């Protein structure tokens, strides 16, 4: 195997000047083309993803992407266009395409850039960029070690979808015709293993991954592999459950999905379209009274950290839910204007939304639940954002006397999200910090489990 360096000759950070120039050109061209306001964003990213299966390298993918997106406003009409071609000619054509669209879209009094006084002016270093150039040999070695740790844990781990490792770095420059120009650069490194356990009862697959902005903070290959294998093994001989109502405990890696349903419901776009199950709920009791959910945009090194949002607005640490009461919505400038409220700095989404723990680890939560369903996997998309009706496929474990009894599968869990939110009993301290939505395991008082 050759030891080709992973990152190619271009250092992503050194591309900053090129991207800034491109954004300025797009803004200038927009003005020339008759736009009254414009915004542009240019990005560049590169990396490598590699999979080792049964000890052999299976795939190596070198990624290198770039793009420029422009939105123009001609009065109160808007148009957008994007391209992957960074030539001056392509930039001009992209601006022209956006302006052409803006001739045909309707007047919209809420359209336009963020208000200038909301734009970020402080750009603290959030510790988001940690390049890693380990060379192909080291990547292969780590992926192989992670998979080997899984395969050697138990003889019932007989097959594998592989050990994978990836390292990516990217930079984005956003600018608008208010004179704002901001840059964000970041890295993301991941190590994962997916293996198959098999016995007389059949096959079960499970996986584990570690992901961080810093390669030296990744879990060890041995730990990732052993966790993946353990998760696959414990699913063997799963049974169905009879249909019943019972408490449901969402294990941390799947619990964050409940926060995503909250975000969808309080996002400005869902609210002004009246397509949400949490309409007019500001200041209302939406969760059990102990619940605090807050945004932490300035958390150093975290996945969702950013000092400005997708339209340049300064982000703010804040409570979204305090004492169970909804404190604010998730707004960008447009949806804010539609609702007669200021933007909350959430164009492009929330930043490290975190559910505060009020309980111990998963074992403590199982004891607290006593008897009920521990859900470790959810499949399907059975969520109705307008009514809050919730019905998803699940797999996990039946718990009795506070202890796991046996694995279960081919069941569904169903309820209504407003009821489920009010039914939050506890949130564990086992917070999954790999993603932008950070929650520990969540215990809900009662849901309908459908099975045999």
């Amino acid at each position, binding site marked *: *195997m*050759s030891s*080709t360096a992973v990152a*190619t000759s271009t250092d992503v950070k050194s591309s900053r000047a090129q991207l800034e120039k491109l954004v300025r050109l797009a803004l200038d061209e927009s003005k020339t083309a008759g736009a009254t306001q414009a915004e542009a964003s240019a990005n560049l990213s590169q990396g490598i993803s590699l999979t080792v299966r049964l000890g052999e*390298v*299976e*795939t*190596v*993918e*070198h*990624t*290198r*992407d*770039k793009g420029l997106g422009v939105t123009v406003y001609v009065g109160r009409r*808007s*148009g*957008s*266009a*994007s*391209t*992957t*071609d960074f030539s001056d000619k*392509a930039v001009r054509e*992209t601006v022209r395409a956006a302006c052409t*669209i*803006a001739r*045909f*879209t*309707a*007047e*919209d009094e809420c359209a336009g850039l963020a208000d200038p006084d909301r734009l970020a002016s402080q750009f603290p270093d959030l510790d988001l960029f940690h390049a890693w150039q380990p060379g192909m040999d080291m990547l292969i070695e780590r992926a192989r070690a992670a998979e080997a740790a899984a395969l050697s844990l138990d003889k019932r781990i007989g*097959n594998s979808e592989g050990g994978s490792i990836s390292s990516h770095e990217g930079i984005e420059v956003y600018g608008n015709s208010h004179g704002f120009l901001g840059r964000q650069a970041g890295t993301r490194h991941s190590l994962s293993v997916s293996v*198959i356990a098999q016995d007389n009862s059949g*096959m079960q*697959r499970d996986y584990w991954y570690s992901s961080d902005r810093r390669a030296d903070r990744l879990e060890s290959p041995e730990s990732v592999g052993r966790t993946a294998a353990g998760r696959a093994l414990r699913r063997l001989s*799963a049974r169905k459950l009879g*249909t019943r*109502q019972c408490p449901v405990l969402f294990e941390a890696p799947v619990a964050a999905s409940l926060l995503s349903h909250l975000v969808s419901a309080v996002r400005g776009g869902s609210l002004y*379209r*009246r*397509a949400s199950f949490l309409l007019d709920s500001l200041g209302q009791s939406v969760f059990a009274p102990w619940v605090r959910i807050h945004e932490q945009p300035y958390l150093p090194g975290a996945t969702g950290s950013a000092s400005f949002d997708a339209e340049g607005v300064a982000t703010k640490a804040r409570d979204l839910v305090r004492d169970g009461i909804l404190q604010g919505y998730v707004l960008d400038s447009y949806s804010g204007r539609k609702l007669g409220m200021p933007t909350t700095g959430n164009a492009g989404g929330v930043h490290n939304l975190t559910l505060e723990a009020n309980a111990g680890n998963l074992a403590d939560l199982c004891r607290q639940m006593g008897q009920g369903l521990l859900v470790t*996997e959810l*499949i*399907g*998309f*059975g969520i109705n954002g*307008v*009514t809050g009706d919730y*019905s998803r*496929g699940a797999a996990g474990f039946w718990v009795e006397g506070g202890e796991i009894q046996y694995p279960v*599968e*081919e*069941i*569904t869990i*169903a309820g*209504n999200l407003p009821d489920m939110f009010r039914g939050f009993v506890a949130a564990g301290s086992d917070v999954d910090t790999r993603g932008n939505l950070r929650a520990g395991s969540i215990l809900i008082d009662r849901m*309908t*489990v*459908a099975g*045999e």
Partner: protein
Amino acid sequence: MKDDTTARDRLALARRTLLEPANLGERELEQLFGRLMQGSVDYADLYFQYSRHEAWSLEEGIVKSGSHNIECGVGVRAVAAEKQGLAYSDEIALPALIEATGAARAIARQGGKATTAAAWRQAETRSLYAPLDPVVSLTDDAKVRLLERIEREARAADPRVKQVMASLAAVHEQVLVARADGLLAADVRPLVRINVTVIAEANGRRETGTAGGGGRYDYSYFVDAYGQARETALGYAREAVRQALVNLEADEAPAGSMTVVLGPGWPGILLHEAIGHGLEGDFNRKGTSAFAGRVGERVAARGVTVVDDGTLNDRRGSLNVDDEGTTSQRTVLIEDGVLKGYMQDLMNARLMKVAPTGNGRRESYAHLPMPRMTNTYMLAGSHDPGEIIASVDRGLYAVNFGGGQVDITNGKFVFSASEAYLIENGKITRPVKGATLIGNGPDVLTRVAMIGNDLKLDSGVGTCGKEGQSVPVGVGQPTLRIDGLTVGGTRG
């Protein structure tokens, strides 16, 4: 092959778009393959792609936004036995391609003599759709008027309609595949789509309905020569309203195992999830699918025949040629209940020592190809749909669905109903809320008790995701009665 001239025309068109601006001719391609086919590399291909995408969306009665995106690039893949290397460039130019070949072939042992390239030959491709550019097939003004017309149709259908969201999208894509074995294949793939979502409100309750459709056409599929919206397009608006109104009346869905009757058409998502993914060649070569090693075994009731068919005219999932230069085909997956074979791309077919089936697809030049479905459907049976409903004492009749998902290893799959009714004593009685249905892929089709005579394909809205890659697909089926599927409602 129906039309060799058109295939040649498509190749000429793709060369003009993708190769000639970069001064790439056969000599340059040979130079690249000379660099790629060294050491243990036994196969390589280049995938050139240009795609233009536009979208327009309406809400609150006005078209607020529109977007236009251009994506262009080339993917370089080197294969050595089970190893694959991919590198790509969003600039089609010889220096960038040379750099990418170096990265792609790094998976293989170095040294050894370069394999000499075979003579170039043109792939056999079908002519299932015209080489159209839908983006320019209608003026922007007319696109806006079409969406406004759809909105009016939905509002006029019922005063309880409070919100209408409609979108119009088109893709014009040209691809050219050049393979180390000398094959050159090209395709020009148009794709259009309309989606309509409405929210209806009554007595403080709000519910949604969604409909849409499209295919490998230009916008004349939706608008006639006089610029008027066709019934096809207006029908989506009325259908979305109808679903929302039904849901306004819906009670809690039942929970537990019961007989389920699935309506024809889009409920064929059952086949896509329950067996389709499990029959993709990669999972079966690796032995990670619940269907691995089961060719020749009974996996469905008698009378059940399921095909994957990329050769249907103008369908969303159809391909003149797949993304590896293999002519698309109709592949029988299950015949009269017996598993016949898998869907293959080139690499998995070679490793499993079977023929490729034209299912090698990739989202774009930046992704590795893998076995993917095209249009997957079950052939019609003999029962009248009314007879099937009448045969059920108590059960669920599900006619519209959202998405689905499968765990191919343990075979468990879900798909979520968005319009469903209770069947009581052989009659459809009242609507119930949407619920997720869950089952076990390897045995669900053995529980098919009756097959309708009303095979229908979906209207052209399906998108399938696998390992982070999305591709357009189609599904279809006749009305089906399945005994013992778990319904994930709230009423136990």
